């Protein structure tokens, strides 16, 4: 029994890497600098915990700035799509607008529906907020910029991001509003469904790389743009798009923004929230958006690895952020262009198209792995050629269909 506890519940899962950088930091940097009298009694474990807590504090303080920027970016991007200028009054070119909005939200009344479930109502925004930030812990932003290198990194991310739906349902249920309930149930159905193609498309990568660790997934893409997983095989190319579309559905953005479809169910699960709690939902939404883009970049687009082998072009932290913001921009672009799907169409897309294609992908990746034992110039060349031919033919077919599509002429 004692063995069981000392080894942990899950022996094979290593939540804390043996070479923890915080422990190293305490041992190599802090202890030598301490006065000898203290250093002798200083426990490395305590030091590690303190260092980790400080890091977490910095993290929680810094990451909310990200949504601050993203909200402004979204508004500016939307404005440009719509021939407007966006916010222009607060600060130069309106750059402080979100800050002002945040301040306004803090000072707003914090309304709790009297008939609602108070505890769940208060808890829900924190659940969503905490989960969407916990995801950042496993994302490698750069070579050594990684909070914790689990050996089950991607699994952890999937698990944590699934908990968000709990928060959404809590919010919808506890608001005692029918619109909220409708929105949260839509959200539950949607997130649970889209988790499957998302997970299956991640599985193709795990099969290819042979590891769940985010660090290793990135490390396997170190040979420049053509060793990025998206180009490794035709199946990962498909998987990327399934991943990206499912991710949009996961973070509830247009065309999959049914849980908060403004024109249908008012504001969905956060209809009854006001003030800072509403802001938490908002921050969480944008943090989520950044997180799924970052995961997409890590898994498919080389993470912090550069475009050219051996050079740091589009590599490191700046490269990673640029690539991530590229995906974020793509999401914004879609949002301001596309209308919204209906619930049944959303489910159709997931269950009738994405999941079968994902299974096909897994099969294909397995066969690909059997044919090409390891990645070499040949396998990548063939893969890129197939992708190229497929794209060209898809373009031709789509073009022909569009040309054949008759423009309905009245009378």
């Amino acid at each position, binding site marked *: 029994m004692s063995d069981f506890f000392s080894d942990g519940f899950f022996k094979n899962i290593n939540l804390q890497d043996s070479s923890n950088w915080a422990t190293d930091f305490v041992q190599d940097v802090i202890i030598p600098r301490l006065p000898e009298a203290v250093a002798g009694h200083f426990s490395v474990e305590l030091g590690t915990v303190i260092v980790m807590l400080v890091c977490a504090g910095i993290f929680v303080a810094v990451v909310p700035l990200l949504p601050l920027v993203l909200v402004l970016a979204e508004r500016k991007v939307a404005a440009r*799509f*719509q021939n407007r200028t966006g916010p222009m009054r607060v600060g130069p070119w309106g750059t402080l607008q979100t800050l002002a909005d945040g301040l306004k939200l803090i000072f707003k009344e914090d309304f709790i529906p009297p008939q609602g479930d108070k505890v769940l109502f208060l808890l829900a925004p924190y659940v969503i907020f905490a989960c969407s930030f916990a995801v950042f812990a496993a994302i490698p932003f750069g070579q050594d910029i990684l909070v914790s290198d689990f050996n089950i990194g991607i699994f952890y991310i999937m698990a944590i991001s699934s908990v968000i739906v709990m928060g959404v349902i809590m919010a919808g249920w506890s608001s005692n509003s029918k*619109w909220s309930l409708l929105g949260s149930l839509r959200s539950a159905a949607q997130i649970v469904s889209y988790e499957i193609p998302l997970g299956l498309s991640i599985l193709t990568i795990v099969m290819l790389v042979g590891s769940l660790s985010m660090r290793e997934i990135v490390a396997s893409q170190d040979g420049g743009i053509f060793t990025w997983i998206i180009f490794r095989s035709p199946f990962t190319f498909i998987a990327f798009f399934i991943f990206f579309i499912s991710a949009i559905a996961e973070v509830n953005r247009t065309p999959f*923004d049914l849980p908060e*479809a403004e024109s249908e169910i008012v504001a969905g699960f956060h209809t009854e929230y006001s003030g800072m709690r509403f802001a938490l939902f908002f921050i969480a939404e944008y943090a989520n958006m950044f997180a799924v883009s970052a995961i997409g970049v890590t898994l498919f687009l080389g993470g912090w690895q550069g475009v050219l082998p051996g050079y740091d072009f589009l590599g490191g932290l700046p490269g990673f952020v640029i690539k991530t913001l590229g995906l974020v921009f793509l999401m914004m672009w879609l949002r301001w262009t596309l209308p919204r799907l209906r*619930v049944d169409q959303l489910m159709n897309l997931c269950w009738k198209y994405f999941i079968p294609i994902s299974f096909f992908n897994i099969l294909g990746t397995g066969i690909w792995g059997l044919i090409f034992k390891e990645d070499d110039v040949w396998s990548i060349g063939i893969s890129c050629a197939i992708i190229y031919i497929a794209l060209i033919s898809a373009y031709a077919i789509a073009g022909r269909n569009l040309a054949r599509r008759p423009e309905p002429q*009245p009378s």
Partner: protein
Amino acid sequence: MESTQQTESKIIELKPFTDEMVVNMGPQHPSTHGVLRLELRLDGEIVREAIPHIGYLHRCFEKHSENLSYPQIIPFTDRMDYVAAMNQNWGFCLAVEKLLEMDETKDFAVPERAEYLRVLICELNRIASHLLSFGTYGMDIGAFTPFLYAFRDRERLLLLFEKVCGARLTYNYIRIGGVSEIIPLEPGSIAEQNYLDEIEGFLDYFEPKIDEYNDLLTSNSIFSERTMGVAVMPAEMAISYGATGPNLRGSGVDWDLRRDEPYSIYDRFDFDVPIAKDIPELGAVLGDCWSRYKVRMDEMKESVKIVRQILAEGLPDGPVMADLKAVRPPKGEIYFRSEAPRGELGFYIVSDGTPKPVRVKGRSPCFSALSALQELSRGLMVADIIAIIGSIDIVMGEVDR
């Protein structure tokens, strides 16, 4: 209906039963186009029944009218369909003029110049109204951007209206016997030429934009998925419910008052009446939401055509107001209908020979079209309700009067 449901449930004994949820959609709701309240009885996402409750914007138009003289009623018609107020003014004035028996044989006919100005302004207003409908429909379906594009273009039209009557929304421009002279547009003056040039500039800008909007929204596959085949209103049903205008033509009935019962000078212009058709290749069913929407998009082109013909001819010289001493119709009654952007706008006026009417009834196209909602929405989903409301294009000011 009740009995058939009961027998069904007897046959399928293991039918899972879920509680119905009664939800109030509106009167404050982002996409009920005003203060419409729908009592939805939902089974999950499926709408068992959607019962419209109206009257939140009832401003006693008919009661007020009985205590006002005829010219004083015109501003009230502005407030009916505030999106196409010019057409409402015109509809009322046409009815009163008919009751006054104004025509060429009498010495107080509506002057030629006024007729041209009326058609010009009302067709521009029709474009503005359809633009709003297009924009809000996009927003109902979830695309936000077309809404702002539509408002950008509508803004230019509102500026044009402002130049002839000083108002942006409630114009009170078309008067009994002519049009308002508050801001004079002298025949042959530079001001007139500039104004017409400005309209021409707008048309040149706007005509390609319609195709752009068709590319952006009409042919968008998500948009077509959402609207095609949804809430099909067959022709008989549309006629029976009194759906008119684009809603009727969306059901494939070839009927346009401007062509079939020409009033004013519409018989002088050459324009087509857009009719929806079954398009199996695309998936569009005759009478669905998409058809009604598409008819509006095509109608904008026809309005552009009419305005271009007026610009090519130029406005005739002469006064803009008939020589009318007092508006005092003879004893009698009239029902006159005209083609407003939302359909057949009728005014029923009973006169007893005094300067005030005994009875004025506005027959609003939206009122009739909205009554079909309950039947159209049965068994569809919540999202479809929004699509239907947008596609029948209601303005609550007109429904409630």
